[in-house]
């Protein structure tokens, strides 16, 4: 990964963690807040590949778990897996295109939120299923819309295209 891309993503992560802690609720529309953690990890994985995705997922998730003070290891485990999956697919995708980002973000956020909700409901499957539409799918949809918008805004402001093919160093070694 190019050094400039790394710094940009580090800045992205720091800003995202702060935003999640402070202004995530301000971003909520009709009570639906975006999943900024998945947003961070997916872009890390798309830009840096599977290894970067695993690492980013673990670190970001661990900070979130420590901040919440419960289920330490849950978010980090889920996000690491998401980071690996997205990072592995990254080179096969038109990842610089917002529609591709939308699809990846929607599925990644759905998986992350569903797993976290299952633990938040202490395994009550009835409660989990009833909360899925709003707490998982609507949030995932919002996240999937917000991610490409942020990316397009970054690009419009003149930021380098860290998702352009050829930037990442995640080619599998034989």
């Amino acid at each position: 990964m190019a050094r400039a891309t790394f710094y940009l993503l580090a800045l992205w992560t720091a800003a995202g963690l702060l935003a999640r802690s402070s202004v995530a609720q301000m971003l909520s529309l009709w009570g639906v807040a975006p999943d900024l953690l998945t947003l961070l990890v997916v872009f890390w994985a798309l830009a840096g590949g599977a290894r970067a995705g695993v690492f980013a997922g673990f670190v970001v998730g661990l900070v979130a778990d420590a901040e919440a003070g419960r289920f330490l290891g849950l978010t980090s485990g889920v996000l690491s897996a998401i980071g690996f999956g997205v990072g592995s697919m990254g080179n096969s995708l038109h990842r610089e295109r917002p529609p591709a980002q939308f699809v990846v973000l929607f599925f990644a956020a759905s998986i992350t939120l569903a797993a976290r909700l299952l633990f938040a409901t202490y395994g009550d499957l009835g409660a989990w299923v009833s909360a899925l539409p709003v707490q998982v799918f609507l949030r995932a949809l919002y996240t999937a819309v917000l991610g490409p918008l942020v990316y397009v805004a970054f690009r419009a402001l003149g930021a380098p295209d860290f998702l352009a093919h050829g930037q990442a160093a995640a080619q599998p070694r034989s």
Partner: protein
Amino acid sequence: MPGAFPPVDRQAAVALVVVELLCALLLLFGNRLPLSAMTGATAALLAPANSTLHWIQGVATARSDASRLSREVAQLRIERDRMVDAGLENARLRALLGFSERGRPSLHTFQVAGVAGEPWPIVYHLAGGAGDGLRVGQAALAPEGLVGRVTRVDENTASVALLTDPNAPVACEVVGTGVRGVLKFRFGTEPGLYLTAVPLTDTVKVGERIATSATSLLFPAGIPVGRVTQVGREPTGLLSAIRIEPFAQLSRIREVLVAVGPIEAAWWPKPETLAARADSARADSVARAKAPADTVGRR
């Protein structure tokens, strides 16, 4: 079927396996780690930047806040005059009935440095710690009502478990009727706050207010908590299912009030003090009424 899946980075796959094992171990044995210290460290790490963001938000909303507060001050002045009279009456009646006086908590303001919890906020991290008088167990309030209680304190930061934390129930009662119950956040078909353990024989109506109960071991009595929005029946058929909407907007609070320090001896001041205050308040009202129109309500 070669080519159907993207090639896998073997080092990344090994890293994933290691990380997942580590996460599983953390999930299983994480409660043996000093989790509160980790929470404190995370909160302290994020606190300076969060404070800056809060300051920027505060500046951005200062104008609308100022006009809203001016309106509230005007309403509160009227309310204060009424309360002073009510206080006098209350003190006189308490003296007649021989009731003991309740303690008054001393409230201090603390900034919310961070919010944690998914999908609902369940923890606030406060920009204040033991050095500022915070202790585990203290009640955290907003001007509208109860927010939660302090569950972790270190030297510079503290955490508050909110009403939405399923592990932080609150003993409450319905204002006026005195029906008692336990306020809990519950999942189920309609996740939210519910007043539980209320028998069907106790009548609770939509719109009634609930406050902390005198039987609460953790909170002072009489702190407003919320309003009844729905009354139904538990599946067991023995208890009421009473949904509560909290007064405090837990997702939008920037500062909380915490009852720190020793509880003052008297909830109401002595009658003579109240009488003096009433006179002073009336004199203020008269003075304001006599003042030229352009000085009244000026910001």
